[in-house]
């Protein structure tokens, strides 16, 4: 699964991340831990970094499957 990052959180990853997710899925919390370990990017564990699955912001209990589009985002700011 390819994971995109938006905002400041992209920096420790240096671009989209690639990670394997089992067919039975993993929670967003688990996915954060996998990414943090693989990329040495502790920042992904911060609660201010939100997860979006298929263009919807989700809670950390949300299950992620290989077919999903998963993105992590730093706090947004327009205007």
């Amino acid at each position, binding site marked *: 699964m390819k994971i995109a990052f*938006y*905002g*400041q959180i992209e920096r420790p990853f240096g671009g989209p991340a690639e990670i394997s997710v089992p067919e039975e899925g993993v929670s967003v919390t688990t996915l954060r831990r996998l990414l943090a370990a693989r990329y040495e990017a502790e920042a992904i564990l911060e609660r201010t970094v939100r997860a*979006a699955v298929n*263009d919807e912001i989700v809670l950390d209990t949300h299950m992620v499957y290989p077919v999903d589009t998963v*993105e992590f*985002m*730093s*706090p*947004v*700011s*327009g*205007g």
Partner: protein
Amino acid sequence: MNDIPTGAVVCAELAFTSIESAARLQELRQRAMGYGALVSFEGVVRPVTKQGEPLDRLILDHHPRMTVSSLERIAREGAARFDICALSVVHRAGAMAPGEIIVLVAVASDHRRAAFQCADYLMDRLKTEAVFWKREQGPFGERWIEPTQRDTEDRERWNEEKTGH
């Protein structure tokens, strides 16, 4: 542009080139039938950072789908909350120089109070909920800008206040 149940005409747009505010306001005047007040706000790139350093560029990154839908949602909810005739939200993405318009909000209504309040409400929501990520560049290098506690407090006051009709 969407018609919503209140009858207000709503326009929300993501722009990748300079916002021509005079032309945008003229479009709004033509769409807003029978209005008696028009309030507009421009957010503009400042020439210096909060730390007082000169700014070369402000860059707004956006999401390919969620940014436009966030602008549309905020605009629709503003039109539903206040007694207005029409509103327009135009927001830039990409790299901007000092002096360029980042966002234009314009609201036409029967009476001034609703137009002022709706424009204020739209800006407070855009500052905290519009899906953009800002970074500034200058002699200091590059720095990300995240919403402030003040932005969050400004947004939260609308949870308590009554609507302006």
